[in-house]
Each structure stands twice: as structure tokens, then as C-alpha cells.
């Protein structure tokens, strides 16, 4: 197994407040890694450090090292290059207020692809990968805001595919969706994981057990336990993990 991301001694402060405490973990290629834990424990914060979305927030200070294929993403990589390689899908579906086509074509266009045929191909490919080509192929010119919540989120996943990323980060991507949409997205993630590295924050422990290979349990900005998903849920080593997964708090 190849370590796609190596996280070494990462601390993160929002001003005075320390939101992440000494995070160490390796995230492996072609696996789904899940982050679980009660809300406010730092899952989203940590996810955002992986593609430097925290750069956009004022007063954030990060120490430690995060390596993507061995390269320090905070020292030796441009944020725009990093975010192209490490894509992100947000908790609330956020398609741009444009057509479905333009939503998916936006990323490649920004990265300099102007050829119409090439863009058409990327749009189709991305929508196919997100398993929604057949649903939307006849309405590509329609506004993306007319789609249902579940479709919007899959469009956002297609949009993430469009720039050909290596890692995809998803922050509770199904928390606003109905069970059928949720299932579609879960199936999709399992299907594509052979070609990507996937990191997913989830509030839902069943979801973690259904789709992930490894799971990290966060609490108060720390990783309490990180293990094979099966082992973590069946034989947690830490008392706090056990309390959380058996529903005694959180």
C-alpha cells in the first residue's frame, strides 16, 4: 500500500483556540478513509488542512507537516496546484448558479482548456463517473439550481472529477440528502475508489462501516483511534472510542 498523504505532528489554531492537536496519520492510495466523531471535534478543520482551504480563513495558524506523494503541501506546493490534485466536496451542495454543463466545465476552463470538443468530452466523462450522465444529458444547458439536492451533490462530485484529481475530500456529503441519494453516492464512492484516494467525514457511523477501509475517531481536536474500519468498530482499543460507537455519547 502506498501512502498518498502523510500527516506529521499537525497543530492548528484559530487565533488562540487550538482546534487540532498533534495529528499524525497516513492516508493510503485507493482506499476510503473515514473521519468520525462528535460535532466540533475538528473533522472538517482537519479535512480542510489537506487541501489548504484553511488558507482562506483569517487568523489560522498551522504547524507540522503534510506531505502529498512526499512533497510538503504548505512549503513546496502552490495552493491552486494542490487543490487541483486534492479536490473537495462540501457538506452543503454548492453548484454554481450556472448551467449543469458550465458547472462541470468550469474547472477545466480555469486550467486553460478551451477546446470545445475536449470540454464536451470532460463534461460527459465526469458526469458519467458521477453516475448521472443519463439523468442530465438532455438538460445540460439548464440551470444546476433546478436539480434536486441529491443530484446537486452528485453534480458537485462530477465537478470535482472534472479537474482529474488524485484525492477527493468529502465533508459529510450526504448529511443533507435523502436515503436513496445517500445510497447512490455511497455506491459511487465504492466504485471509484480504485482510481482515487478518498477521505470522507461522516456523522453517520453506519456510513463509515458501509464504505470505508479505515476509520479515524476524532475527539476534541485529537485522533483517539485510527484503524481498519472493521477492527475499530468491532474491537475498539480505546474506551472513548467504544463509548462513542456504542452511542454512549456524541
Amino acid at each position: 500500500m502506498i501512502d498518498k498523504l502523510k500527516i506529521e505532528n499537525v497543530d492548528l489554531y484559530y487565533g488562540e483556540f487550538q482546534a487540532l492537536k498533534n495529528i499524525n496519520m497516513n492516508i493510503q492510495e485507493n482506499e476510503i478513509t473515514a473521519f468520525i466523531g462528535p460535532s466540533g471535534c475538528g473533522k472538517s478543520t482537519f479535512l480542510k488542512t489537506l487541501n489548504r482551504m484553511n488558507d482562506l480563513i483569517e487568523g489560522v495558524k498551522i504547524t507540522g507537516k503534510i506531505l502529498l506523494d512526499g512533497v510538503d503541501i504548505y512549503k513546496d506546493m502552490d495552493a491552486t496546484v494542490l487543490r487541483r490534485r486534492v479536490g473537495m466536496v462540501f457538506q452543503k451542495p454548492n453548484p454554481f448558479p450556472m448551467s449543469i454543463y458550465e458547472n462541470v466545465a468550469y474547472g477545466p476552463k480555469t486550467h486553460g482548456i478551451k477546446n470545445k470538443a475536449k470540454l464536451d468530452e470532460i463534461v460527459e466523462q465526469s458526469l458519467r463517473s458521477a453516475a448521472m450522465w443519463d439523468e442530465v444529458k438532455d438538460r445540460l444547458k439548464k440551470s444546476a439550481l433546478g436539480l434536486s439536492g441529491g443530484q446537486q451533490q452528485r453534480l458537485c462530485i462530477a465537478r470535482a472529477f472534472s479537474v482529474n484529481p488524485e484525492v477527493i475530500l468529502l465533508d459529510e456529503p450526504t448529511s443533507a440528502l435523502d436515503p436513496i441519494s445517500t445510497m447512490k453516492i455511497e455506491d459511487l464512492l465504492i466504485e471509484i475508489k480504485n482510481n482515487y484516494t478518498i477521505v470522507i467525514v461522516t456523522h453517520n457511523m453506519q456510513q463509515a462501516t458501509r464504505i470505508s477501509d479505515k476509520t479515524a475517531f476524532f475527539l476534541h481536536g485529537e485522533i483517539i483511534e485510527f484503524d481498519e474500519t472493521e477492527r475499530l468498530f468491532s474491537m475498539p482499543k480505546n474506551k472513548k472510542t467504544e463509548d462513542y460507537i456504542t452511542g454512549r455519547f456524541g
Partner: protein
Amino acid sequence: MQNIKRTNFSENIMQAIFFLSAFISVLAVLAICLFLFMRGIPAIAEIGFMDFIFNEKWGPTNTPASYGILSMIVGSIYVTAGAIVIGVPIGLMCAIFLAEFCPDNVYKFVKPAVNLLAGIPSIIYGFFGMEVVVPFVRENMGGNGYSIMSASLILGIMILPTIISISESSIRAVPDNYAEGSYGLGATKEETVFKVVLPAAKSGVLTSIILGIGRAVGETMAVVMVAGNAVMPLDKIELFKPIRTLTTNIVTEMSYASGLHESALISTGVVLFVFIIILNASLSLIKSKAQRN
């Protein structure tokens, strides 16, 4: 018990005041419309609609008199278009700067300056135009300075605060998660602002432009001081030559006009009013379209 009664009483009073205020506003609009149309329409009928709107000859004191305002309609359209060409790009760039790029310590100065621009009376703009803009145009661009160009420059500045403040607030109102989505794809700040945030603020930006047009079309005092006010035959209208607009036609002649001449000036006001109604209708259209999305 007494308390309840008092509340009801004061509530009723408040309601009456609200109603009265709304009633007075509506009454004012109705009274103005009534005045304009009652005085203006008969004159248009007497002159003949086609002769009034599509004739370029304005000579109320000639014999026989002629009352064509086409030259002023075109004049109003030209100075307004000029104002838009000058004011919209500058205003929009300024709004984008203020909303997205401006450091706090610069914002502290620029924002009040823009607000001040909005509060300056039009007579002051007019003076500035006469003393600074007109000589500048005369010396650097040609003609005697009193011109479409000067009027456009002054109006372009006058509509800046409208364009800037409404565009800025509509850019700020764009949800952050659109920008996040764009950054998440590896876009830069500039790409995000111009390709995602600005298009998302489109309806607010359009609104600001239309309100700017309304301000420019209706502006009188500043224009009369810099435009030269000569009625130009259509084929003689040029950028660096004088021009008369609908508003300046009224203000230049109202003091001595009487009879059909006076009524024809009020009819000029009717035409101006129709312009404003069209602008307001397009505003409602934009709003309802924005709501549907």
C-alpha cells in the same frame, strides 16, 4: 384590563399612521401622474403625436411654431449612454475592489468618499463641470467644451455611487460557498471573483446600472450647466458639440413659456416619465427573474 385596552388603542393609532403614510405616498404619485397627463396629453394631441415625437424641429416661437422633440430624445439617450460607458466600468471595478480586494484600512477611506459623492448636490457637479470639465474638453478634445462629452463625463461621475454601492452589496451577498467551490477546484482569487462571484451577483449589478440610467436620464441641473443646450438637427449631433436633453429643454424654457409652448414642455416631461416607467418595469422584471432562480 386597562393595559390591554391601552395596547389596542396605541396599536390602532400606529396602524392609522402607517396607513396614512402609505396613502400619502400613493397620493403623491397619483397627483403627479394626473398633473402630467392632464396637462401633457392634450398638448401632444394638439401638436400631433408623430410631429411631437418624431420631428426634430423645435421652434415654439417660430411662425408657424414647431414642437418636435426628437432631437432632445436622442440627446437624452446619448448623454445617458455616455454616462453608462464611463460610469459602469469604473463603478463596477470599484465595487469589486471594495467587496473583494480592499484592505480594511483603505476601505475606511474609500467607502465614505463614495458615500460623499452620492450626497453632493447636482449644482456642485454642474459648477465642477463648467469650471473643470468643460475647459478640459475644450482644450484637449475640441469644440467649445459644452458638449455631449462633458455631460457624459459629469453624469458618469454622478452615477458612480449608485453603481458602486448597489453592486458592492450584491457582490457581498453572494454566498461564500460558491467561492469555496471555485477555490476547491484550484481557481485563483481573480478567477473566482470574475467567473463565479460576479456572475452570481448579476441581477444586483443590472439593478445598479438601471438605477444609474434613471439618475442620468433625469438629471437636469448639472447637465444644463455643461451641455450647451442648443437644439441640434439630428445629422449635426456630435460628441464634442452641444446637445439639448429632455430635462434641459424643460428647464431652459419654462420660465418664459406660455400657452401651447408651456404645455409642450410639460409633454416633454410626460416623455421623460415614460422613460422612467420603462426603467422601473425592467427593474421589476430583473427582480422577478432573480427570484425565480
